[in-house]
């Protein structure tokens, strides 16, 4: 199995590690503290024992006013080593082998650690004064007594280790409990994630519906994820639906055209006909077929336009520029028959030419589609006005005096196969792809196209394209060309 990352495990391990580290720190602190406390207690007991030895130094009933050690009633620690000396170096009493200790010259109380045959001992050196017969007129005989008393220090260590063990066990128990609680609580905390995943699992190509579970929406950390999922899916569904609609519409369009061609030919072959009838029938069939061909061609154009940007970016193909003015004039020339048929005046106003990053063919397609659209929607004898302004971008506006667009249509006119009439009646001509092709051309060039209604009536198509100002024609006065 591949190494996977578990949040539960990570969190648990992190918490346990932190807990372990703090326990370690705590134990260290406690060890130091305990050592001091125990040492102090140990030292006090050493002092006490030394003091009791001091107390056991008695007045010996002899003529030299000597002192002696009376060990009755004195309880000393096990393995204790001591030596009691008087000022003349006479040993009053001792136990155990006392090592030679480096004692300071000044008579002060000191502690010393010494290793005796592998055991650590701590000694206390007590200097005391024993006055024999203090009631005598000379004030008695003072005896300066030095007591060295020591016991093994093991005891301190033992106490410290005992307390460390206690804390270690407590820590281990605490860690175990924490691990269990963590495992349970992390699972509980992560349950919204699982619910989110379960809900997301339900998404399929057929059903894009996704409602983030409430638990996920109520979790602050998951809210952005849930919202992002919802938004992404909504967008995906939108484009998926659009794609499906396009496919359905395209199929509908093609099937209808094919049905016409097929029925025309089948009608012709239903029975034997005269040569004239065949001729007429074939001419009609050819017209029907031309329409089918046009539909296919436009679909292919749209497909090409929508695919190309990616290919262009990949191959790094050089962008072709064309003169927008020339293209518009070509488009006007192309649409002249229709304009003349409807007695429509086409006016083209421009101050400067612009070079736009579209190849000639597509630019002509763009301009003639918009122009034909304007002509088709204009009443007879009207005027269609084309205006071009260039600054950083090329702005192209085409105004007609037709019925304009309804608000409902305006949102959809650039969608493939969209027609104002839901039945998609084709009597108005066209396949419903013209404006979609325009939009694809504009967007591929990095521009935009929109349609709005003029206050004076009629529609206004506004095209924005990135442009290079063509220096060749930069006339100061506006040229007006009328067709």
């Amino acid at each position: 199995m591949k190494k996977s990352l578990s949040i539960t495990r990570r969190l648990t391990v992190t918490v346990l590690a932190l807990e372990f580290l703090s326990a370690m720190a705590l134990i260290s602190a406690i060890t130091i503290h305990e050592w001091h406390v125990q040492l102090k207690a140990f030292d006090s007991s050493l002092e006490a024992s030394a003091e009791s030895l001091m107390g056991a130094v008695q007045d010996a009933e002899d003529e030299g006013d000597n002192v002696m050690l009376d060990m009755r009633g004195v309880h000393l620690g096990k393995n204790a080593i001591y030596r009691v000396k008087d000022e003349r170096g006479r040993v009053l009493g001792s136990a155990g082998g006392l090592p030679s200790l480096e004692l300071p010259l000044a008579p002060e109380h000191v502690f010393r650690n010494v290793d005796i045959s592998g055991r650590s001992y701590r000694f206390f050196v007590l200097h005391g004064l024993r006055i024999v017969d203090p009631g005598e007129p000379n004030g008695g005989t003072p005896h300066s007594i030095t007591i060295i008393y020591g016991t093994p220090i093991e005891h301190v260590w033992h106490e410290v280790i005992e307390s460390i063990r206690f804390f270690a066990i407590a820590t281990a128990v605490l860690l175990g409990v924490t691990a269990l609680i963590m495992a349970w609580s992390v699972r509980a905390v992560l349950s919204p994630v699982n619910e989110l995943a379960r809900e997301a699992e339900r998404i399929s190509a057929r059903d894009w519906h996704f409602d983030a579970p409430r638990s996920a929406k109520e979790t602050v950390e998951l809210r952005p994820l849930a919202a992002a999922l919802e938004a992404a899916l909504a967008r995906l569904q939108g484009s998926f639906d659009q794609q499906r609609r396009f496919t359905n519409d395209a199929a509908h369009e093609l099937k209808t055209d094919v049905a016409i061609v097929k029925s025309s030919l089948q009608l012709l072959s239903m029975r034997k006909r005269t040569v004239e009838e065949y001729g007429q029938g074939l001419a009609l069939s050819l017209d029907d077929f031309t329409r089918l061909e046009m539909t296919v061609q436009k679909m292919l154009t749209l497909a090409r336009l929508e695919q190309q940007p990616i290919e262009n970016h990949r191959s790094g193909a050089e962008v072709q520029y064309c003169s927008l003015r020339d293209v518009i004039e070509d488009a006007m020339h192309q649409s002249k028959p229709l304009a003349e048929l409807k007695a429509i005046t086409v006016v083209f106003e421009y101050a400067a030419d612009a070079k736009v990053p579209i190849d000639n063919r597509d630019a002509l397609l763009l301009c003639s589609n918009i122009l034909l659209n304007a002509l088709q929607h204009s009443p007879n004898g009207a005027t269609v006005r084309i205006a071009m302004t260039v600054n950083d971008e090329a702005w192209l506006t085409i105004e007609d005096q037709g019925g304009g667009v309804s608000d409902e249509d305006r949102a959809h006119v650039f969608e493939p196969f969209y027609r104002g009439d839901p039945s998609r009646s084709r009597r108005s001509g066209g396949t419903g792809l013209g404006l979609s092709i325009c939009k694809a051309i504009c967007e591929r060039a990095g521009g935009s196209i929109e349609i709005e209604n003029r206050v004076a009536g009629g529609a206004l198509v506004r095209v924005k394209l990135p442009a290079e100002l063509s220096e060749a024609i930069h006339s100061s006065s506006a040229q007006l060309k009328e067709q």
Partner: protein
Amino acid sequence: MRVLLIEDEQRLAENIVAALRETGLAVDYALDGETGSHLAEQGVYDAIVLDLMLPGKSGQHVLRDLRREKLHTPVLILTAQEGKESIVGLLNAGADDYLSKPFDLGELLARIKALIRRAKGVSNPILTVSDVELNTVQQTVRRRDQLIDLSPTEYRILEYLIHRPRAIVSKQELLEHLYDFDWEHHSNVIEAHVSNLRRKLNIAGTEPLIETLRHRGYRLRDEIAVL
């Protein structure tokens, strides 16, 4: 038999109309839903061919309104839409058959004829009444195995009458079901055709098949004593 075609695609409508007329059916057609619905609800049609995507009123609504008016004219749906659900929905809404575009013209004609036949309570394409046999596929008529040569109109009158045995069929009804709006028609045209038809059917050794009931119409005699 008179058929109504509701189809907004002009060229397709023209082709279907021409084909239907060539097979001897009277055809009216409407290019939008409103007109189509209005015509369909007159109840003079023996079958309706209905496109779904129509301007004005969708095919679904035309069908729904037709059935709401308690008209049982058989309806064949022409559709370019995909999806079985819509077909199931349409059949459940009262459609009798459907063809998806692009369809075969011959199949469309055969289905329309079958719909008309079934609506009249017959499923066999060969109709018989007493000793007369009418083949709706070949459009031929035989009496006692003798081929009788009829004009298209005479054939259509006989076909219509055979579909309504023993019923009195008025001249008006014949006019409504045999002619579409493109024809100039008068009731005496019917009289002339019926008289010719009766004469042609009257071969030696048979009794007259068609009865004339004055001011009421015509009736096909079902039981004729075989001589």
